[in-house]
């Protein structure tokens, strides 16, 4: 046996939590199931911020989950940038949930495009935090910010990694 882990996403003013999402749809609607074709971003504008977390639903007999790393592989369309609160240094602690917005995110770290060398998402507000029973990570907050000259969307892959101690 080993731990059971899923990715959750929070949306709306009431922090509705969608458990076990299978993809990250980014566009101009605050929903875990945004259709980015029907809700495209106007060039020069931003997607809604995403609030996601890694949720351990069952420890499966293991003693610890830690060392959370998040990154994106694949290019964005045009000159768009991908900003996040995930960072390996100067981590600001657990992000507090706020109703997602399309205004420019207060989080300014560029989303890594390869595996970070160390944890970049915390547990309990700390990059060295761990889960020893069921529970969730801090919120991963991220947003794609487009350039006025961008003309097309893109598809890339979000990677969520954790270490598990039996």
């Amino acid at each position: 046996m080993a731990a059971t882990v899923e990715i959750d996403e929070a949306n709306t003013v009431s922090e509705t939590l969608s458990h076990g999402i299978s993809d990250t749809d980014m566009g101009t609607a605050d929903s875990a199931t945004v259709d980015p074709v029907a809700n495209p971003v106007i060039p020069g504008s931003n997607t809604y911020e995403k609030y996601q977390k890694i949720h351990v639903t069952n420890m499966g007999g293991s003693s610890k989950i830690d060392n959370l790393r998040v990154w994106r592989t694949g290019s964005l369309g045009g000159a768009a940038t991908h900003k996040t609160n995930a960072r390996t240094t100067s981590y600001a602690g657990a992000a507090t949930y706020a109703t997602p917005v399309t205004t420019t995110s207060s989080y300014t770290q560029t989303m890594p495009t390869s595996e970070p060398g160390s944890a970049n998402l915390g547990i309990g507000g700390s990059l060295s935090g761990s889960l020893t029973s069921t529970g969730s990570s801090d919120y991963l907050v991220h947003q794609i910010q487009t350039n006025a000259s961008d003309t097309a969307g893109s598809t890339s892959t979000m990677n969520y990694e954790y270490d598990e101690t039996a």
Partner: protein
Amino acid sequence: MEEQKHVCARCGNEFVSETDYVNHDCNVTGVKPSDPVSMGPAYEVIQAKALERGAARAEQ
């Protein structure tokens, strides 16, 4: 403020608590969200890799 809802992204059912969500029998995956099968067809690989990383760090 409205009470927080918990939604299963697979079957769409809504729950008033995380505990209720974790303990429901999902009619899409066929298992509870606490069952590793709910992680998808690659769940054994995901779990094995996570344990490998944890063991490697413990040895350092």
